[in-house]
């Protein structure tokens, strides 16, 4: 009798232990949304964003899922094409929130689609990590919106002093940006900072996205005899053509592409000579001398899957999912308000190293992720990492 009771108790204890272990915890799906241009000239951004987010989701799922209390969540990434337009952003947000029942959006590309999307996400308390550079995309009136990508307002105070130290003779600066919400906003943010650093802004020009012949515009800029030109937020193809045509027009000064991100594509389109000396701060450098172990590991997996290394956009999406995972784990809840409150107070790990939440001085709310950036310069047809800089708020 005593033996039978011992066996029964042992069986009961095993059952209780087994049921309380993660293996028997209820497995659910946590859908994470994103929307970005997946058609049109900027389609590669959206497709890369999906790939980056899916890589981190796959890592989480392969490791058993995201544990929140007694629940285990498998991560599912749902992405829509926002066509880089406000209406596209509204449609994507509607689909994600009302059809797919998404409570978290891990990445959005484009200021106009982000601003349009926020009209819905803020009302529905959907926690959003976006990459929009418009200052209006962050603020006290948008308590559920965070920015996971560094924008000119974070990059300029870090990158320009480095450039100034490296190229002290360059004083006459020409700024060139796309003629849209992103470009205008970025110019507004950049100008006061560069002026405070002692640069004279001799040209401030805008071009329409999709332009291929920049000769007329660049002739105008060259007439102002700049020592340095920053093409800031130009996307890859257009940026490469600008450098190519500037070279053809004889520009040999300091070439800054503040948000430049793909030296290989630049060299391919513009050629080795025209690309020489282009300084970039969003190259990503996931495999270079300054890359962290995490970047190298993730980039290796990414390369095995997609045949190319991770770049800043894939890293931003990867980090978006990772930031959220860290915050949910710490909050022990998937309630967006609890996760938001936790997010505002914690430190994070990002692919590039330690990340903090900041931006209160700029946006009036601490919702900007800040992490180190690697400066690269094109030398002899190769992208060479030359410095790793930390945003001012990282102590």
């Amino acid at each position: 009798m005593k033996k039978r009771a011992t066996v029964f108790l042992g069986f009961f204890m095993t059952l209780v232990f087994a049921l309380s272990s993660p293996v028997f915890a209820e497995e659910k799906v946590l859908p994470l949304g994103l929307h970005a241009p997946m058609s049109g000239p900027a389609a590669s951004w959206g497709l890369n964003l999906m790939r980056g987010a899916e890589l981190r989701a796959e890592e989480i799922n392969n490791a058993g899922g995201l544990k929140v209390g007694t629940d285990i969540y498998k991560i599912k990434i749902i992405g829509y094409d926002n066509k880089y337009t406000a209406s596209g952003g509204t449609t994507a947000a509607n689909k994600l929130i009302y059809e797919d029942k998404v409570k978290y959006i891990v990445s959005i590309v484009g200021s106009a689609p982000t601003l349009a999307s926020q009209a819905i996400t803020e009302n529905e308390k959907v926690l959003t990590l976006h990459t929009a550079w418009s200052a209006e995309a962050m603020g006290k009136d948008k308590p559920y919106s965070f920015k996971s990508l560094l924008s000119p307002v974070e990059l300029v105070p870090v990158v320009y002093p480095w450039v100034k130290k490296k190229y002290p003779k360059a004083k006459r600066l020409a700024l060139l940006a796309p003629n849209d919400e992103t470009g205008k906003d970025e110019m507004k943010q950049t100008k006061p900072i560069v002026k405070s650093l002692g640069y004279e802004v001799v040209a401030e020009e805008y071009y329409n996205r999709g332009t291929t012949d920049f000769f007329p515009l660049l002739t105008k800029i060259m007439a102002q005899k700049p020592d340095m030109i920053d093409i800031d937020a130009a996307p890859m193809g257009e940026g490469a053509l600008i450098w190519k045509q500037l070279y053809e027009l004889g520009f040999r000064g300091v070439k800054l592409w503040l948000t430049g991100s793909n030296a290989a594509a630049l060299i391919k389109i513009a050629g080795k000579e025209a690309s020489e000396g282009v300084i970039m701060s969003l190259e990503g450098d996931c495999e270079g001398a300054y890359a962290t172990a995490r970047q190298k590991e993730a980039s290796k997996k990414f390369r095995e899957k997609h045949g190319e290394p991770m770049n800043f956009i894939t890293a931003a999406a990867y980090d978006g999912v990772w930031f959220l995972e860290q915050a949910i784990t710490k909050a022990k809840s998937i309630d967006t308000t609890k996760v938001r409150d936790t997010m505002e107070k914690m430190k994070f790990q990002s692919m590039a190293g330690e990340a903090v939440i900041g931006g209160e001085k700029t946006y009036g709310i601490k919702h900007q992720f800040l992490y180190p950036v690697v400066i690269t310069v094109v030398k002899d047809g190769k992208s060479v990492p030359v410095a790793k800089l930390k945003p001012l708020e990282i102590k």
Partner: protein
Amino acid sequence: MKRDILVMDMTLLLQVTLNGLMLGMIYIVVALGLTLIFSIMNVINFAHGEMYMLGGLVAYYFSEQLQIPYMLILVLAMILVGVFGIVVEKIFFRPFRGELLPALIVSLGLSMTIQTLTLLNFGTEDQSVSTVFPGMINFFGALFSKERLAIVITCIVFILLLYLLIQRSKIGCAIRAIAEDREAAALQGVNIDRICSFTFGLGCALAAAAGVLIAPVFYVNPYIGGLPLLKAFIIIILGGMGSLLGAVVGGLILGTVESFGTFFLSVPASNLLGFIIIILMLLFKPSGLFGHE
């Protein structure tokens, strides 16, 4: 000192003028095919930009993947896209010949289909085509690349060849006859179907030639056809729908206006200037500079 400033100004003036000329030439080659197709078929072909894009893609594959000589690529692209144009005309446009609206909708659908199919096969990445004319030319202080000069020269050759074809050949005579009066041409024994197919193919081949010529200067992706098409429409409205001379003059005017507009005003203002000219033209001379009522 004054002399230096004057020299500098003259150089800039020359640079801006040359920029306009080169810009205009690129627009003209795309517009020529479009206006040719409209002149005899009354079709506003929105898929024309896709023919330009296909030319660029052919240039990319043949040049970067197969290492075929560039001049041969130009000929091959014109043949391939031209034959494709003939097939497209037979299947999609012949049933709607002379019917403006249905043909326009067909061309829009065709444009989207070609673009999407290209996107699925080619991907979204910008691809470059190696230049065959490297280096720069300094013309009294104004700079431009040899590849741009090659485009201008090739464009002039194309314009002259097209002029000779239309004005001096038998098939050109048939094209002109159809453009004047299709029924009368048919009564004179002109094979309307064959001439329309040929002209549509020729128009597409010209667009493809423009794509091949411009590919090394810019880049290639499935969306490159949109902007040249828009400019081509502006040019043919300005020059007169169906007029080859109008396309040439319209292209040069638009290129110059954009170049000077950008230099003295801004890019958005210069784009606006193009549309202001169109509005004024439609208000005061709807047939365009060289078009017929």
